[in-house]
């Protein structure tokens, strides 16, 4: 019986991930908008700070990470909203699969459509801010892990605020302080790479963050969803 | 006392306004955080007592009538 259930869960996760991906692909604007937002804010910085490439490249790690953080927040605001409205979140909570596992497919799909995409195109944005191409691997690697951590943390906040009227700004208040370590480790890795240092410590810390987040965040997300559904 | 005179204590070696100000703000905050629950408890209690009194007098009136 338990064996049958184990297979069940894997199969469930795979099919649910595909389902959520299809849902996202059907309305591509939801996937594209955060990217456009990212680009737009990046454009604002040279306009505000002046076009000097030297100055921009000094500030680039911080700018890229803060903007990544903000666009991640935008994604988190939409995370469970539709599922609560059409009742599928309730179905999820009632399903035989533990809720902490059942929320993972959606997060995976969200990350594939946001974090992964953002990380892969980020070297382009880096170039615009005067970052040399040699640091692109570090930029991509740090963003890959950083967006995953931020999505996991943001999902906790999203689960807690999805039932609240005008939860968006509240979500920002709850979650942004928790993003601080990710921001610090992410910019540190880039700065180390830029100044000839060793970025592996910062990257390893981000990796530890992903592991810890994957272990703990689903429990908090599940508890949060239950609170929002008032179960 | 560590200081020689009251004026010395107030001056704090030139930092008087800052040091005394820091203590003043702290006590102001503490005062307000202390006052808030005390006042609202008092208000709530007054409401409860009033209601209890009204109920008792209503009962009393009923008793007189019958």
């Amino acid at each position, binding site marked *: 019986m338990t064996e049958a259930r184990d297979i069940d869960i894997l199969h469930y996760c795979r099919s649910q991930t595909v389902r959520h991906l299809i849902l996202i692909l059907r309305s591509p604007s939801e996937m594209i908008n955060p990217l456009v937002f990212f680009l737009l804010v990046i454009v604002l910085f040279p306009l505000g700070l002046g076009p000097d490439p030297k100055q921009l490249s000094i500030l680039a790690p911080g700018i890229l990470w803060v903007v990544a953080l903000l666009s991640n927040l935008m994604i988190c605001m939409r995370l469970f909203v539709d599922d609560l409205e059409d009742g599928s979140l309730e179905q999820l909570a009632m399903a035989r699969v533990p809720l902490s596992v059942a929320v993972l497919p959606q997060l995976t799909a969200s990350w594939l459509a946001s974090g992964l995409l953002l990380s892969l195109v980020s070297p382009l944005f880096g170039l615009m801010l005067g970052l040399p191409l040699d640091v692109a691997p570090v930029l991509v690697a740090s963003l890959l892990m950083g967006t995953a951590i931020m999505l996991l943390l943001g999902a906790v906040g999203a689960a807690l605020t999805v039932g609240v009227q005008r939860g968006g700004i*509240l979500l920002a208040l709850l979650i942004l302080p928790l993003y*601080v370590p990710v921001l610090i480790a992410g910019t540190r890795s880039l700065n180390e790479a830029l100044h000839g240092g060793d970025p592996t410590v910062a990257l390893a810390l981000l990796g530890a963050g992903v592991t810890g987040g994957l272990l703990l965040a689903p429990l908090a997300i599940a508890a949060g969803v239950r609170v929002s559904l008032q179960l | 006392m*560590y200081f020689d005179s009251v004026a010395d204590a107030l001056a704090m070696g030139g930092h008087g306004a800052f*040091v005394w100000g820091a203590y003043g703000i702290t006590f102001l905050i503490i005062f307000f955080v202390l006052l808030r629950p005390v006042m609202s408890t008092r208000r709530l209690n007054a409401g409860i007592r009033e209601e209890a009194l009204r109920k008792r007098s209503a009962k009393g009136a009923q008793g007189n009538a019958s």
Partner: protein
Amino acid sequence: MWRIIHQFGSPPWVYRFCDRVIPWLFPITVLALLAGSVWGLLFAPTDYKQGDSYRIIYIHVPAAVVALAGYYVMALAGLVSLVWRIKLADTAMRAAAPIGAAYTAIALITGAIWGKLTWGAWWVWDARITSMLILFFLYAGVIALFEAYENKTVAARACAILSLVGTVNIPIIYKSVDWWYSLHQPASIKFTESSAIDASMLYPLLGMIITFYALFALLMMLYLKRSLTEDYARSAWLHKRLTA
């Protein structure tokens, strides 16, 4: 043992407990606050490096210490409320948040004043000040989340989860901010860390830390009593107590 724990779940018992302790704790705490301040301000010797401006330490450090401890008190109450569904734990959690935020505000304001004296700037991105500011936002988040829900039982559960997530994150945040600061620390700004503080300076500091803890306990009881009065306004035991 179990009876004591049981009693802490009973509203009338806790109300009576608060009622009995507050008349003692209130004057003692206020007197200790005044005595500690006078000791720190007037009787402790001057720091040979910082002069008299160091006297802010007697409120700044205790406020910062208890502000951090207060978050753990809140999270612990949240855990109790989540696991055992004790309504009083909800109330305690709800009480701890504004008190902790007030302590954090005191630490930040006095820190800014002290910073102006030692560093010449009202705000310096020092590791400890920055961590304190983030702690303030964590408190603000819990308070805002509590206010956002109509149903206060649901609100308490949401806040409990949030404060537990915060508890896991606080050490990480503190460590990462330290790490960040160690990289960016400019040479001109250095916190004079006196490794061996003299007893004549240490004792008033310890006294003030204990006093600030006592004040936290007193405030918790005052807020608990207030919330109990609000929640049980229609119950017989409270009426009996108030009209007796």
